[in-house]
């Protein structure tokens, strides 16, 4: 049972490799004059248009409201750091899985990886949201269109982190994309691995004298 859990723990983090090929997040912008909506796919290493010229066309529209052009990979440290972080987490997860397989570490390490990954994920989302707030509100004071809310405050063009908002003539929808779903599946597998490992552990812990020593080494 611990072997099966470990195999799951090895496979789970590998799903994060999908982030190198598939977008993490997707933001679509549709409007009456854009029956085929413009869209951007956010990868861990940069932003690409859903169609070839979407980024150029989104930037073209954004210039009216004074928004900066969308960042190129070299414009943000995140795009060079994230691939390393993901790579590191995949390597770490697989290593833990292998050690679990050969019974060098216990199932609690599986949970440890999951918690670390979740923290990194939340930090990533926080960073992503901060970036969108910055782009959506930190606008050129000489913008062509300066729109204000009813209370006189400037309109924010921050896209939603999750879900849909109406922004001027645009319907903006922001949702996790294939890469994020793969990551989610992979992380769920590590959770399952944890519970499987835990289930396998309990009866054995009563019968085996060797195992608790290993827990000690784990806890050090």
């Amino acid at each position, binding site marked *: 049972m611990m072997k099966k859990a470990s195999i799951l723990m090895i496979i789970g983090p590998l799903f994060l490799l999908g982030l190198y090929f598939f977008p993490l997040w997707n933001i679509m912008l549709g409007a009456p004059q854009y029956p*085929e909506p413009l869209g951007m796919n956010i990868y861990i290493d940069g932003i690409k248009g859903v169609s*070839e*010229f979407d980024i*150029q*066309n989104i930037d*073209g529209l954004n210039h*009216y409201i004074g928004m900066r052009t969308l960042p190129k990979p070299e414009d943000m440290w995140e795009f060079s750091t994230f691939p390393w972080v993901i790579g590191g987490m995949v390597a770490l997860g697989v290593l833990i899985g292998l050690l679990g397989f050969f019974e060098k570490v216990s199932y609690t390490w599986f949970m440890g990886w999951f918690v670390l990954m979740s923290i990194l994920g939340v930090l990533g989302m926080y960073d992503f949201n901060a970036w969108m707030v910055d782009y959506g509100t930190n606008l050129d004071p000489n913008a*062509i*269109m300066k729109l204000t809310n009813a209370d006189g405050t400037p309109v924010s063009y921050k896209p939603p982190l999750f879900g849909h908002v109406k922004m001027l003539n645009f319907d903006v929808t922001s949702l996790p994309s294939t890469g994020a779903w793969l990551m989610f599946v992979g992380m769920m597998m590590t959770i399952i691995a944890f519970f499987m490992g835990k289930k396998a552990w309990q009866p054995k812990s009563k019968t085996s004298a060797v195992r608790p020593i290993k827990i000690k080494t784990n806890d050090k």
Partner: protein
Amino acid sequence: MKNLNYIICILFGLGITLNSCNQSQNTNGALSSSAAEKVYVAPGEQDEYYAFLSGGYSGNLTVYGLPSGRMFKEIPVFSQFPTSGYGYSEETKPMLNTSFGFVPWDDLHHPDISQTNGELDGRWIFVNGNNTPRIARVSLSTFETEEIIEVPNSAGNHSSSFITENTEYVVAGTRFSVPVPQRDMPINEYKGNFKGALSFISVAPDNGRLNLEFQVLMPGFNYDLSHPGRGKSHGWFFFSTYNTEEASSLLEVMASQNDKDFIAAVNWKKIEEYVKNGGGTKMPANYAHNVYDEETHTGTSTMIKEVVTVDPTKVPGSLYFLPTPKSPHGCDVDPTGEYIIGSGKLSADITVHSFDKMLAAIEGEKFDGEAYGIPILNFEEVLAGTVKSGGLGPLHTEFDDKGNAYTTFFISSEVVKWKVGTWEVVDRKPTYYSVGHLMIPGGNSRKPFGKYVVAMNKITKDRYLPTGPEMEHSAQIYDISGEKMELIYDFPTHGEPHYAAGCPADLLASNSKKIYRLDENKHKYATIGPDDARVERDGNEVHIYMSTIRSHFTPDNIEGIKVGDKVYFHITNHEQDFDVPHGFTIIGQGTSEILVMPGQTKTSLWEPKKVGVWPFYCTDFCSALHQEMQGYVRVSPANSNIDLSWSLGE
């Protein structure tokens, strides 16, 4: 009084019977839908078919949808078109070059869509210029004219521009015979001296490039219309003739004397082989070949100095005449390639020749003499049948996919449906009025799409709200999916449509280009990045490298221009978004605006005549800030010393 009541009763009775008769005629059962439903394409929906209607004397080609009859675009071909700047911009002026110089107009008659194995393939559409003989090729991905070749030794390029079933050739026949080569001679020496040239222009399969391979020099008749053999008759081409009398004056009488003229059957494969083996005569000539390159966005004109002519009597078996009554006009070939339909335009009947019988008659040498050394086949030996139409003045025939033919009758103003093979008339419907050509999508191919027929008329009169003496021509759409034709729509066209071509929408819609790629723009004066925008002087020529993006020109302030300069505005549209052109014009512009598509470069030549500060602006409402899309050019006296300078946002 009793009698009166009786009469009223009878009248009422009659009325009821008549009404019920009418009702039973108007409905074909409970499921038949109304005409309005059949042509109604709801907002946001798209049509089933593209229809390309020739514009006749507009010189252009118009694009419509079927069954809605909505016009989508006018494609400039032979005429200057201020809407886009075609024929005005520096890039497109060469497209209208001819051996007569710049000819900014023509009379466009017969569109034909390219085919593979006798079926529409939707790569290109070919059209003819009737007046200054030219053939044009229009791309069906950009819907723009890509190539125009002038046809030498031709006059009234009317039996054109029909293609062979694998688009090997686009064929162009002369309507008016002329001296070949042209020379100073008395008109009344026409007979026996004038020639009719039938031109075979090859189409390169990869890029569509046209090349005049050879011209067959025929007796001096009028070659009116033509169509290719298909299927078993592939390799032959059929031309109707009139004026076999060879009259040069008062043709309406003098050219109507012979009871029969001919359909000329040309075995082009034989002539092609003859030319390939070195046959034919190279004759000095001078004709323009104009090519528009999609990557440089620029047209170039080259004069060609030679043409290969062929005397068909020197190529045995290459040419026969099929006697056809009453000055035939239309010359149409059915989808199987077996029947050649000759419409004697002064006749009530339609003459149908059989290809198999023609081959047998040639084999059996069933000749009735000859004309200028060309064998005339015996009429009875080649005749497949006659359609006793009951109409008058047949002109053109198209076919559906169920073995029916549809012939227009100009004089009796109707479309007559008949069965190919039995020659039995099955239906007739009036047209409004005096119909010329008709079109069924693919109706001139091996694979027609027999759902709608469009009848294009010469006379409009009371069909629409009156617009003074001049009115657009009317066209009617009939549903031909059932046994009887049903008139479902009536719409005005543009110019004078002659022939048309149509195809299913999905053949073209997905290939239709949305933008030109800026990174593929190889225009000599392109401004690829906004940093490349600049102004250069070369003597009195000034070249302005200008770019556009919503919603400004770069640069938009230019100084140092002088009166007498030739100022070339080379505008590159940096948009890479579908349907976002920018226009350009400047005060006093003596040509037209130019409309620049995304990724494209176009050039407008301006010759400032007055000192001052002159504005230019974007002519296409491109964006919310379109009205702000403007700039100024300072024009100084010819002898001033102001340096060139340019800027944006300074």
